[in-house]
């Protein structure tokens, strides 16, 4: 994992994933271009490309944005999360074709620099009806570019997972900008029930899924511990933790995961060092806690990734009192060895 910045290497699952990305994109382009040529054949090649790729990009963006909450709601969707960055980069490339052709077609070959022209050729910033919608698309494309450019784990390391995550959360800003870009642009000139309906449906689907997931997680956050004895917090009984799995608790302000394996129990931080995945939803595989998102591994008794990897997470002390598990809320330094409790 930490050694060569390439934890997520090529493997069969990724190849299948990528194959389906390409198939999906080709089917989309064939449908859009085919239908347009058959039913509206006076189109120009440039317009065909601009529209085919613009609409493809927004369609892919919706698929990307539903995968996150689906994987949070049901772990069977996790394989879709595993290689989502390739879907993201593909979406960016489609958006780049759209934006690139648009800038070339509408803003280039004039008497000013094309980028300057995006901002200045229509100055009606104060009017919704006349708003320069291309500016919104431009900012969205810049965000998508930054995300695609930093999608490799090399950048995750270099920017620190926190900054990286913040940058990648900007996908929601980009999504908002793109929705406005379409509603204030193409849909104003050619409004139709169909296109407005599909855009609205997309937005409602994404918003609902995120709200449902969000409320589920807030509820989970409320299951705080109650009894505190001499600083030790009671979390649950031993048989409440499934074998090779964990239960997640909030102690202090941190989420921790209490794992049960080989008649032992260990507590570690719930937050994966890779992209902050929920380790407590992972499983102990070959003696290692394995992250559900991309499979980073940690030893449950010391929070260290097995050699040659170097990731370390915080560990916590546990106590068994009559099959009741107690945690000491202070996080130990990352990678601190703690004797597991046995039962």
């Amino acid at each position, binding site marked *: 994992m930490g050694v060569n910045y390439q934890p997520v290497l090529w493997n069969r699952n990724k190849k299948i994933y990528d194959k389906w990305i390409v198939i999906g994109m080709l089917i989309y382009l064939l449908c859009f271009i085919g239908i347009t040529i058959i039913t509206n054949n006076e189109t120009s090649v440039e317009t065909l490309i601009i529209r085919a790729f613009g609409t493809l990009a927004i369609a892919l963006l919706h698929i990307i944005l539903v995968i996150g909450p689906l994987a949070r709601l049901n772990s069977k969707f996790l394989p879709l999360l595993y290689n989502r960055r390739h879907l993201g980069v593909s979406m960016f490339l489609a958006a780049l074709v759209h934006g690139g052709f648009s800038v070339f077609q509408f803003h280039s*070959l004039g008497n000013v620099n094309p980028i300057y*022209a995006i901002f200045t050729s229509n100055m009606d910033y104060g009017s919704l009806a*006349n708003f320069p919608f291309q500016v919104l698309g431009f900012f969205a494309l810049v965000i998508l570019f930054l995300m695609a450019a930093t999608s490799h784990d090399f950048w995750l390391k270099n920017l620190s997972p926190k900054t990286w995550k913040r940058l990648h959360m900007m996908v929601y800003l980009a999504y908002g900008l793109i929705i406005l870009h379409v509603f204030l*642009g193409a849909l104003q000139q050619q409004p139709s029930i169909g296109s407005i309906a599909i855009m609205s449906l997309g937005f409602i689907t994404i918003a609902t899924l995120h709200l449902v997931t969000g409320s589920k997680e807030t509820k989970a956050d409320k299951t705080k511990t109650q009894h505190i004895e001499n600083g030790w917090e009671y979390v649950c009984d031993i048989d409440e933790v499934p074998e*090779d799995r964990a239960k997640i608790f909030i102690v202090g302000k941190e989420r921790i995961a209490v794992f049960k394996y080989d008649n032992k129990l260990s507590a570690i931080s719930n937050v994966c060092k890779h992209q902050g995945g929920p380790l407590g939803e992972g499983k102990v595989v070959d003696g290692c806690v394995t992250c559900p998102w991309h499979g980073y591994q940690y030893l449950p008794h010391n929070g260290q990734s097995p050699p040659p990897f170097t990731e370390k997470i915080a560990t916590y002390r546990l106590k068994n009192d009559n099959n009741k598990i107690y945690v000491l809320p202070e996080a130990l330094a990352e990678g601190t060895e703690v004797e597991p409790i046995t039962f």
Partner: protein
Amino acid sequence: MENKEDDFYIGYVDNISVKTKKTVTNFVFFGILTLITIAVIFAFTQNTFKNSTFELTTNTKIMGVYHEMPYPMLKVKTAENTFKNILLLGFGKSSANPFLKKIRNEISQLSGSMVSIEGNLIYYNGKTLLQITNDEKITLVEKANSQKLPQTKSLVKDMELKGEIIDPKCYFGVMKPGKGKIHRSCAVLCISGGIPPVLATTDENNISEYYLITDLKGNPINKKILPYIGKPSLLTGNIVQLEDWYQLQIDVNTIKDLNRPSKIY
């Protein structure tokens, strides 16, 4: 003992449980159906494109009498006693003027001269335009003869016309759509690059008419008209006929924005 029944997916481990596989397969199937639905909806909800034409890859040589009243045009004989005035444009979002500099330096008077020009034709609805991409492709055929210049005829004063100010290059063929909000930024750049502004009107019977816009003295307008481009507007001015084209002479400050079609729903 590891609990093998307990389904857990690890990306880099090739095998994948039957249940997970089924969920993912369903997602892919559903995802592709969604993609097809979106493609169908977006493809079918496009407005119908016009049959305007831009011969990007074909060069055509035309010969005629050059004139600028005030915009560069070529009066071309199409049959005995019938002429067509072809609007001349430069490459990209530029007027013909930069491309005419060379020939202007070579001959004393360009207006009224018979010249031959090779370029790309743009045409729609009875109007023809020519894009010049190379100043070498303009040659003098016959020296200036003011007899051959077209005649203008003043038709109506203070006429009110509703329509959209477009850039003729894109509207008559280079882009689809070459008008409206989608195209507005481009039209602004074209007209600010010297391409003549044109008012396109459509009556109840869907018959369109086009007017080259000039100021009240008949001089070109470019920069001052930029804020009014690509929006439904009301223009008031004097109409002058230039053979197969109309001109509309206006005071830019009297243009009224009708705040119509590009509306918010």
